[in-house]
């Protein structure tokens, strides 16, 4: 019950941020919403199922490039259409990739996903005619529910309608994932994480369920990818680079993968800490390396484990 109150308060707090007039912080919230959506999916694979992907940024890139391509080449302006097509594209990519990847676990799974991520990265980077190469593809301002908000400037659009759109999508993603984790599928995935052999013994089809987790995670990541590229206005190949995948796992661990809302907290702390550290020093990577090392060594269950005892992802 207290948990529900805290959540309601958090969503309400997020909803009033744009009203404070501090547009800068409101624009920082936008990548937070995008990463939250993606990480909720990624955690179904890592926290719930126990598979560590080091190439998940591939699906963020699928989402980002789908949005960019629809907008620039096909003149599709509706964000809903972009989201739907991106999620379908993610399924199309994730089915063969996931089918191959889930045959392996542990370090081999990580390596195979990393290889697929880098494969996609070099495709984006090298096939200039199709993907814009290292310059990427610009993302035009999409319509939200069919409305252009032409009277607003870029910031007004982003901290106004787009902000609430992202927040709403983030809430929908969290509710959906909450249902998935608590469904028989989620229970089976947890059983696989705890002991794959025992799970198989009681009738869980291990490989098939891992595959489901992979595809669902990809769909969430693609939706997050769409949300991510609209504020920056650009889909670039670095979206798929392996260090981006590393950062995703970093956020997951920072917040705590063993709690349902750990990834969301991780994304929040990562983005605001990055902003603060970058304003102090250009060597923010060093600081983040130290933070990551400290979390790995001293706080394996992330910041969430400081706040709540209960472990239920």
């Amino acid at each position: 019950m207290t948990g529900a109150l805290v959540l309601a308060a958090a969503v309400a707090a997020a909803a009033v941020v744009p009203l404070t007039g501090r547009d800068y912080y409101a624009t920082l919230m936008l990548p937070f919403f995008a990463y939250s959506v993606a990480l909720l999916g990624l955690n179904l694979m890592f926290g719930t199922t126990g598979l560590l992907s080091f190439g998940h940024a591939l699906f963020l890139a699928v989402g980002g490039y789908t949005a960019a391509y629809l907008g620039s080449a096909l003149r599709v302006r509706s964000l809903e259409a972009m989201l739907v097509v991106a999620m379908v594209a993610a399924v199309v990519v994730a089915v063969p990739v996931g089918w191959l990847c889930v045959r392996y676990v542990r370090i081999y799974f990580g390596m195979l996903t990393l290889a697929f991520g880098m494969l996609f990265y070099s495709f984006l980077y090298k096939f200039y005619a199709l993907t814009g190469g290292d310059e990427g593809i610009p993302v035009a301002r999409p319509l939200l529910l069919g409305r252009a908000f032409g009277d607003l400037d870029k910031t007004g659009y982003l901290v106004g309608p787009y902000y609430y759109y992202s927040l709403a999508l983030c809430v929908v993603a969290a509710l959906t994932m909450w249902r998935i984790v608590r469904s028989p599928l989620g229970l089976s995935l947890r059983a696989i994480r705890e002991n794959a052999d025992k799970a198989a013994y009681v009738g869980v089809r291990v490989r098939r369920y891992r595959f489901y987790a992979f595809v669902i995670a990809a769909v969430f990541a693609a939706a997050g990818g769409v949300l991510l590229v609209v504020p920056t206005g650009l889909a670039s190949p670095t979206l798929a680079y392996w260090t981006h995948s590393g950062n995703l796992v970093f956020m997951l661990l920072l917040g705590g993968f063993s709690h349902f809302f750990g990834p969301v907290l991780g994304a929040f702390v990562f983005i605001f800490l990055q902003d603060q550290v970058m304003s102090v020093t250009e060597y923010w990577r060093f600081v983040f390396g130290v933070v990551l090392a400290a979390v790995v060594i001293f706080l394996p269950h992330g910041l969430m484990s400081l706040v709540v005892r209960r472990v239920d992802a």
Partner: protein
Amino acid sequence: MIQVLNLLLGGVFHAAALFLVAAGLQLVFGVQKILNLACGSFYALGAYAGITAVTTALAAGVPPPLFVLVLIATGVALGVLGPPIERLLRTIYDRDEAFQLLLTFALVLMLEDVIRFVWGAAPYQLGGVYLLYGQVRLGAVSIPVYNFVVIAAGLAIAAGMGVVLTRTRFGRIVRATAENRGMAQALGVDMTRISTRVFTLGLVLGTVGGALVIPAGAAVNEMGIELIVEAFAVVVIGGLGSMRGAFAGSLIVGVLKAVAIALYPEAEMLAVYLIVIAVLLLRPAGLFARATA
């Protein structure tokens, strides 16, 4: 014909550096069971430090032809970083691979900024020594003799590693530890000491690789995180933990890249990753699975 030879030599030159980094990766994976993402950063560190060392040495009056020794010495001297970094990694030896991978990722982030802090963000070059040993003319193309020096050094180090691993007491202990850590420990192997030494050796292979290759190019901030994915392709193709695999894998990746650049530049890395994926799917343990360490 000459063109093909030139192409192959270019590939082998790249393979030599790649082999050193991959060998370090294999050694550490063999003994500590950690896939060290930071070994690309060691390579970058070796490159930057190598440039500074050679520039300083030449200014101090060291005869220019000796620069290659300065480079190797720099790589070896960077070995002092091995024990403290290994001490950090020791905290997570008995944890899940996910944490081990992430701790080495933390090292990647830190080392990238250390390099940026010390040497800046602009490309850093070692001018004037690359062609010091002259060039070999083969018909229409000329190949710097230094390329052969690097290839020879790579082969010599590979041979040296082979001798150390198969003929010496240290090598036997390393192989025994890679095979069965618990049993080796039960037989009296000091795990702490062997881990420190193996990690330091792995690091030195990377730094020497970076130092040796740098006269031929420029050091850039991203060189470490770019090389690591190649080194990683090498170990997957060759088989994790296998030294022979690292050797064959780096030749495959080096030559494949060179050929791809000549025939169809867009496919440069695409070709490498496709092979990686094919190997992972068809022979997940790699082409040289049986040989340990």
